[in-house]
């Protein structure tokens, strides 16, 4: 019998933390990393008698996300209570949107090997985050920190339109880029400001009906997502091949063991007993309000890329790479505004910056050096006061510690020696010390010239301009 071929069917539920200053229903700070329970009040700890009041900015961020993903807007929308008992949820219900989510029926376009593909968005809704539970293996209790309780989230639910982990990562990249461009969220997976649940099923190729799906949680990086997809696909195919059935359940991915485990906590939509939250008046979005948000949308990546190609004459490839990160694009424009040559700025960002980011496993948002310092480095290198190799060294220092390149070059005496008399003296010395090599060169062995340049550079401790050294050597041999 021929081995059966299977197709993976994936839909995503993505939670992004919205970048508001205060929480969704109270005036507590959303700042990450405060001491436990220092950002709490009666509303976000679910005290009886407290009254939630909606943060207007949350609605506007949600609309901005909706417009940029071609969604329809529910101009009459409202909040519902999702009822469940767990200590991270102090009200015993989460305020979310169930019946009338703010956005629905949109799409995001991704690049695949077969060309462009639309991933449909089923809906996006606003909701509040829960608190954080802390467990200690040795104790028989858990501790709760409610700083995160009430931080605004947007849940983005896709249709099951993805077929591989590449498509999933591509979709998440686009989504993250959009949120960052809009300033709606910083989408950091590690810090939990972007959380991804993967709904996955498999079916035999060419079959129309979907298989039974599972939902996977606890995916903290793009790599973990890719591994979880591969692992869960394999597990489900293995079950089917052995004539068994996939059970619809929520599973927790263990990235260390590269396996998912069924979670004990089972849930069914109707068990949440959703009903409209009577504490929160409905939201009516007028045409005027929608228009004003639409009009205030910032320049998004495709327009920015086109503008870089047109105004800064960057090649398409360069413009695409720099604009892929809002942070990199901002750094580029700020440095150019300070007088940096666009092509040179782009080169430093694309080559050295990306190399160091990769080496340190960092994201563009973690870049420490300022546009002022990058502009200075370019000036220093352009004026020829340091050569290329040293400029790269200085850049590395700047990347690590944001040193001022001018000051650094001066302090470490890295400036190239332009004084011809000093250089002449060194060249003369090198020629004398290597008279045999000089002889070979005169006899037509052109290769040894590089060796002589190298010797001079070594004597100069790298602080010479190689072109200048070459010219002098030719003159003096």
């Amino acid at each position, binding site marked *: 019998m021929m081995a059966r071929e299977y197709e993976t069917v994936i839909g995503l539920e993505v939670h992004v933390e919205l970048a*508001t*200053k*205060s929480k969704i229903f*109270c*005036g*507590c*700070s959303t700042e990450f990393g405060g*001491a*436990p*329970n*220092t*950002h*709490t*009040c*009666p509303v976000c*700890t679910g*005290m009886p008698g407290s009254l939630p*009041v*909606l*943060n*207007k*900015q*949350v*609605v506007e961020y949600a609309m901005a996300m909706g417009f940029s993903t071609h969604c329809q807007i529910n101009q*009459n929308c*409202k909040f519902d209570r999702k*009822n469940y*008992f*767990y*200590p991270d949820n102090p009200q015993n219900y989460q305020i979310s949107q169930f*019946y*009338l989510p703010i956005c629905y029926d949109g799409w995001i376009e991704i690049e695949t090997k077969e060309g462009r593909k639309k991933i449909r968005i089923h809906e996006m809704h606003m909701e509040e985050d829960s608190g954080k*539970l*802390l*467990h200690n293996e040795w*104790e*028989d*209790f*858990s*501790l*709760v*920190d*409610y700083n995160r309780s009430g931080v605004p989230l947007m849940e983005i639910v896709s249709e099951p339109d993805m077929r591989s982990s590449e498509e999933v990562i591509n979709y998440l990249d686009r989504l993250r880029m959009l949120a960052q461009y809009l300033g709606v969220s910083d989408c950091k997976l590690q810090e939990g400001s972007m959380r991804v649940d993967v709904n996955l099923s498999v079916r035999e190729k060419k079959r129309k009906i979907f298989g039974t799906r599972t939902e996977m949680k606890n995916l903290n990086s793009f790599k973990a997502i890719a591994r979880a997809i591969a692992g869960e696909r394999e597990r489900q195919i293995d079950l089917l091949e052995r004539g068994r059935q996939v059970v619809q359940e929520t599973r*927790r991915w263990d990235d260390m063991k590269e396996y998912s485990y069924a*979670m*004990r*906590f089972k849930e069914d939509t109707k*068990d949440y*007993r959703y009903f*409209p939250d*009577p504490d*929160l*008046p*409905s*939201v*009516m979005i007028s045409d005027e309000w929608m228009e004003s948000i639409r009009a205030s949308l910032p320049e998004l990546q495709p327009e920015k890329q086109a503008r870089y190609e047109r105004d800064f004459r960057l090649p398409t490839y360069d413009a695409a790479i720099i604009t892929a990160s809002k942070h990199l694009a901002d750094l580029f424009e700020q440095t150019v505004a300070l007088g940096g040559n666009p092509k040179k700025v782009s080169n430093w960002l694309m080559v050295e910056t990306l190399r160091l980011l990769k080496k340190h496993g960092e994201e563009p948002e973690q870049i420490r050096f300022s546009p002022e310092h990058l502009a200075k480095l370019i000036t220093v290198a352009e004026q020829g006061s340091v050569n290329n190799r040293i400029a790269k060294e200085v850049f590395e220092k700047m990347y690590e510690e944001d040193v001022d390149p001018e000051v650094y070059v001066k302090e470490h005496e890295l400036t190239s020696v332009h004084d011809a008399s000093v250089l002449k003296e060194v060249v003369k010395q090198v020629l004398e010390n290597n008279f045999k090599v000089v002889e070979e060169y005169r006899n037509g062995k052109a290769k040894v010239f590089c060796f002589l340049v190298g010797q001079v550079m070594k004597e100069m401790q790298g602080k010479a301009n190689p072109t200048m050294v070459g010219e002098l050597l030719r003159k003096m041999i």
Partner: protein
Amino acid sequence: MVNKITDEIIDYVGNLAKLKISDDEKEQTRKDMQTIMDYIDILNELDTRKVEPMFYIFPVHNVFREDVITNGDDKAHMLANAPKQKDGQYQVPKTVE
């Protein structure tokens, strides 16, 4: 009687709401819930095809606050409500998935 409320449903719903219901209470609760469901059945008989759906019950909308931090650190006061606390956090029975 389209929706028949059984003892099993009362147990199920009671469990979701984390309620302990005694046998006497169970019978009364079952009757009450049946009355509600029967009333809904009556409403379902009405022809509402030409009626605009009412999506919200109160005549109030768009009550917002601006995105401004107005609360400071009120930890001590807040934790005073906790049955138990430890290291500035709420102490609860162990919950591990």
